[in-house]
């Protein structure tokens, strides 16, 4: 059928023209989309993807003091880490640390947020106070706690002494150091967590509570059946962010304990820092960083898998 009927020919031509036009629009849209993404692609590549790849690459090598690769060792760095008692200890400390601070941070912040959400005179002052730790740098907060923890003239031990108890070597006693660092971190985290939770509370429709009041619901019934479920997306966000932050804690360790005593507070990020910039073992440090990355990724994935089911998105 080489000849076409004159009637269908122009119709098919038109179809072809339409098809070409459609393809052209598609290409143009694609280019436009890429252009919009380009700034973030460049930024992410330079500051995120490239260093990440470089870290993975470095973790397979031994390096000299300047960080240049010397010998390819394969998985040797990783194997050494998992047989090193120091790294395993810092692994354990990190998990303990997360366990100490995450529930405490969220429960205290939620409590404060619920309090600060009440319609009372002067509640704005309390909101400012409760969220103020957000505006304090890690260094300043650490120094401030350093004084509180001071074994002889620190306020905490003075209170203990006043109560007739023996002072605690907050930062020097291996049994207490991690707790002390945890308390500092909880205190520092509360500002941010409080603010986010308060925001979440304030976005809950007041008429839900009014309706519950008319229905005869009590305070704790409302808290359990309305506030917490309505807040669950915010709680989930806060949980995820707090866990990730806990895994990445560095500043307060460096100032308060420097990993000591007896490596009790040598959390993974601090251990990475020491390995890289004190011992100049960039390969081993990179291996630790990769492990931390996978750890956080796994934790977050698990949370989304199991936690998200209990979250009520609007």
């Amino acid at each position, binding site marked *: 059928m080489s000849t076409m009927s004159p009637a269908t020919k122009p119709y098919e031509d038109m179809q072809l023209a339409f098809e070409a036009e459609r393809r052209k629009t598609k290409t143009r849209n694609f280019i436009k989309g890429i252009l919009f993404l380009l700034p973030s692609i460049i930024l992410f590549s330079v500051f995120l993807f490239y260093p990440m790849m470089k870290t993975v690459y470095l973790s397979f090598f031994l390096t000299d003091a300047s960080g240049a690769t010397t010998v390819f060792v394969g998985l040797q760095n990783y194997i050494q880490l998992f047989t090193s008692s120091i790294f395993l200890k810092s692994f354990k400390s990190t998990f303990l640390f997360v366990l100490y601070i995450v529930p405490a941070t969220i429960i205290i912040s939620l409590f404060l947020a619920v309090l600060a959400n009440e319609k009372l005179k002067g509640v704005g002052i309390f909101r400012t106070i409760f969220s103020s730790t957000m505006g304090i740098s890690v260094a300043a907060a650490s120094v401030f706690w350093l004084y509180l923890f001071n074994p002889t003239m620190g306020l905490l031990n003075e209170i203990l002494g006043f109560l007739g108890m023996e002072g605690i070597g907050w930062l020097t006693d291996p049994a207490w150091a991690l707790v002390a660092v945890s308390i500092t971190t909880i205190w520092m985290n509360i500002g941010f967590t409080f603010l986010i939770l308060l925001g979440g509370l304030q976005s809950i*429709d007041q*008429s*839900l509570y*009014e*309706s*519950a*009041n*008319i*229905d*005869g*619901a*009590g305070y704790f*019934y409302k808290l359990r*059946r*309305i506030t917490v*479920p*309505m807040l*669950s997306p915010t709680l989930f966000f806060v949980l995820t962010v707090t866990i990730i932050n806990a895994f990445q804690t560095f500043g307060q360790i460096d100032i308060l304990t420097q990993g000591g005593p007896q490596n009790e507070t040598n959390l993974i990020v601090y251990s990475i820092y020491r390995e890289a910039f004190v011992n100049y073992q960039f390969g081993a440090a990179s291996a630790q960083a990769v492990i931390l990355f996978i750890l956080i990724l796994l934790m977050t994935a698990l949370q989304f898998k199991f936690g998200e089911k209990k979250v*009520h998105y*609007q």
Partner: protein
Amino acid sequence: MKNIEMTDITKSYDKQKNVLNEINLTIGEGEFFVLVGPSGSGKSTLLRMIAGLEDITDGIMKIDDRVVNHLPPKDRDLSMVFQNYALYPHMSVEQNILFGLQAKKVGKEEQRRRLIETTDMMGLGDYLKRKPRELSGGQRQRVALARAVVSQAPVCLMDEPLSNLDAKLRASMRVEIRRLQKRLGLTMVYVTHDQVEAMTMGDRIMVLHDGSIQQVGNPIELYNEPANLFVASFIGSPKMNIGKAVLNRAEGRLIVEDELNINASESLMSDIPNDASITVGIRAEHLTYATKEDATHFMEAVNVENLGNETTIAFELNNEIWTVKWPGQWEIEVGEMVPVKISCEDLAIFDTGSGRLIRAAKRVSKGAVPV
């Protein structure tokens, strides 16, 4: 069954100007009482004060002869439907309906029984497991109603419950709510800004404006004898046509907006005080069509809306727009001079200064068959 009694109820926020001024009102048992007014008139505030969601600044509120001024909402034995329904988004329809019963620790079996009874009544049986976001607007509205019904509270408060629905659904829900109220014998306080809802649903209506009662009465009273200019223009659709008028007693003429010259009867003249400056109002259906011969006036049509069963025509009268509503279809061109008949017996006369009614229209549009 309970009545609600308010004495000098006043509300102000932060000692500012009063939002509500000395409201005196009694709502009878089993009555469908509508609070109507434009937005900002204080009607919702009053309703929330009955519910106990707002403090009462001054005055006495009684429910069932018991002073409730300081009683928390849960002890007032009432239910409320909110404008946005206030459904709990994370709970299923069933949990939403049962929330109040569980809070009050009603027995499991009783809960079941009431749930089934209510959902049968509201036709929600198939949706019990759904979340509110999976329901249409009308269904959500029903869940909100079901929540009020299931509590078996004798007083039900509704705050503009139909304002989020489309016009058709609104009309059918109007009937449904009205039937429900009659069937359960509820004392209903219903807030709306829609005078159609007020007219069609209320046993009695209270018109509220700027925190003061304008008039309380049954719908027909409000329509036929509006107490003042505000009620006259608020109740009725299209609104009452209003114009300033001057009475010429010597010639027995009433001149409206310097244009319409209407024959004034003796009784009309005797009803109007000598020095009063007056405003007249006439309902859209009282401006009747006339043939060229028996027309009393000719008016210029500026807009014609042909709805099929009736036609709304707007006339311009010295900067005022007057509308008429005639049954049937009318072929009228914009700009045409239309012959109309205006009788002074159809005019409602108001005092311009105070807005108060001096004399109501003498004719009412009765239906063909006496009811």
